[in-house]
């Protein structure tokens, strides 16, 4: 039974791997492949935020900083200091993760709206620094990256190799998050979300659990940040605006916090509306707003859990109808 069970659980995962593998051959052209890898990068950022939001119950508006700061570090170190890609990337990850540690120490003193506001403020401070510290960041002009690296002779400058590069990293992160969700740490983190006082009474170090959640979240978010720098080959303060932070949060809430598929679905929808639908619908901003409202009215737990509920209910209704017959 356990064999069958785990096979059934792996089915969606296998489906995703397959889909990502064949996607470049289905999509009509390189533009859509670029959109696909962008979606994966935003989805990775959303998944990293979901550690805080979905598993930790901490609604943060600072996640865009983990897109921006590692990207700045990567571009700065490789374009200005001439560091080779790997050490530059590792430094970027370290910087992003360290920033997460700092954010955690500060933000975890507050709760509820206070937490939301302090993360908003932290994100804005980083944004403001990027804007104003012109010598280091290039101000609003930002910084450019001349070329993507060529690890093992793989030319990441071309769309399809880069897409697969991002896909593999994304899948690895997804796999990690799946383990994370089922691990002892994941269980403890959800415990602190539901009953923080009880968790302390059970001997858990609530602050440390939450702080580590920040670290993991920041680390995964930083991976998205480095990929962002490689994808767009430039970085500017606009990557860290409140708008961007809100967008990532919306991806999580839209798709369904605490699920693996939710942030991915949220990233797909929001990115597609922004990049593709906006080519055809002038009032795409209104479309996005209507999607948010519609989801909250009809599937308030988010798309993925909401549809699961609908399916269960539908299944139950079908069963009920079959029974008397």
């Amino acid at each position, binding site marked *: 039974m356990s064999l069958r069970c785990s096979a059934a659980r792996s089915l969606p995962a296998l489906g995703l791997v397959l889909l990502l593998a064949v996607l470049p051959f289905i999509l009509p052209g390189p533009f859509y492949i670029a959109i696909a890898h962008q979606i994966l990068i935003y989805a990775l950022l959303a998944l990293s935020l979901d550690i805080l939001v979905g598993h930790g119950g901490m609604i943060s508006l600072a996640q865009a900083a983990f897109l921006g700061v590692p990207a700045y570090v990567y571009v700065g170190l490789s374009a200005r200091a001439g560091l080779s890609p790997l050490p530059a990337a590792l430094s970027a990850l370290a910087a992003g993760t360290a920033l997460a540690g700092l954010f955690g120490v500060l933000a975890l003193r*507050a709760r509820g709206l206070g937490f939301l506001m302090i993360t908003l*403020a932290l994100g804005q*401070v980083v944004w403001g620094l990027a804007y104003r510290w012109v010598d280091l960041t290039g101000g609003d002009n930002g910084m450019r990256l001349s070329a993507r690296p060529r690890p093992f002779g793989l030319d990441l400058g071309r769309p399809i190799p880069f897409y697969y590069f991002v896909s593999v990293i994304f899948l690895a992160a997804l796999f990690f998050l799946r383990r994370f969700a089922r691990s002892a740490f994941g269980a403890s983190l959800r415990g602190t979300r539901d009953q923080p006082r009880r968790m302390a009474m059970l001997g858990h170090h609530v602050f440390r659990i939450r702080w580590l959640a920040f670290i993991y979240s920041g680390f995964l978010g930083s991976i998205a940040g480095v990929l962002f720098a490689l994808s767009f080959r430039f970085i500017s303060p606009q990557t860290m605006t409140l708008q961007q932070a809100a967008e990532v949060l919306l991806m999580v809430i839209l798709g369904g916090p605490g699920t693996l598929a939710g942030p991915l679905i949220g990233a797909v929808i929001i990115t597609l509306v922004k990049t593709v639908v906006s080519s055809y619908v002038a009032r795409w901003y209104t479309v996005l*707003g*209507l999607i948010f*409202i519609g989801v909250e*009215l009809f599937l308030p737990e988010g798309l993925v859990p909401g549809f699961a509920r609908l399916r269960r209910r539908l299944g139950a209704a079908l069963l009920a109808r079959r029974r008397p017959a």
Partner: protein
Amino acid sequence: MSAQFWLIQTLNAVAMGGLLFLLAAGFSLIFGLMRVPNLAHGGFFMLGAYLGATALDENLPFWLAALAAALGVGLLGAVLERALLRRLAGNEQGQVLATLGVAFIIADLCLMTWGGNPLSLSPPAWLMRAIAIGGFFFPAYRLAVLVLAVLLAVLLVALMEKTRLGAMIRAGVDDREMAEGVGIPVSRLFTTIFFLGAALAGLGGVIGGPILSAYPGLDTDMLPLALIVVILGGIGSIGGAFVGSMIIGFIYNFGIALFPNFAYVILFLPMIAALLIKPEGLFGRVPQ
């Protein structure tokens, strides 16, 4: 720094504080009483400014234009409460997402209706001048805004503390079931609160209009300010919101005058500090 510098920046600070109170009072009311983090508040404010600009274009007197805009935005708020937020009671994430959705739509429809160019709102003619104070000039209108903010604060405190409506609102918020048990129409009260909060935002938009003007992006410029004021002032306290507004007015004006390099973060650093020291806000009770 000369005495004149301190004087004029103090005037600037309190005038801006008054403006911020007009912005934040409605947010504080809705959040404090109903626990709804209404992220469409900036949109309400901007919509008020645009409606006011249109009303002024139709040659309505300024105060009437302000009332009309307040009424319009208030009605929108009431409708939103009935149709949308009512169904999301207690679902904080849902409220965040849904009110942001409303904010997006308001921003987009304003852009569609009024175009991208900034619109000016003319204050009443008798306030359109600068008053000479000790060797420099200060806009009369800003002083009027300050006076209005003080009046409004007094009025709101009186409404909440002294009137039957205020007593019913407080009862309904404290214990909904018990309030319903003694015959208070809680459902209508909640709509009233939302109407009032949104109308205040709309009013603020028109009153702030002659200073800020109406332009795309006014909403996102103002929303963080409303949040900061309410956080610093404490949640759900009109008096706190007033004090918070004044504090922000002073921090902003003296901050950027004395530390121009910190202009981008001047409001956020003190907020972080305040939250670290007193997470529940400087003047608020702990929200649970």
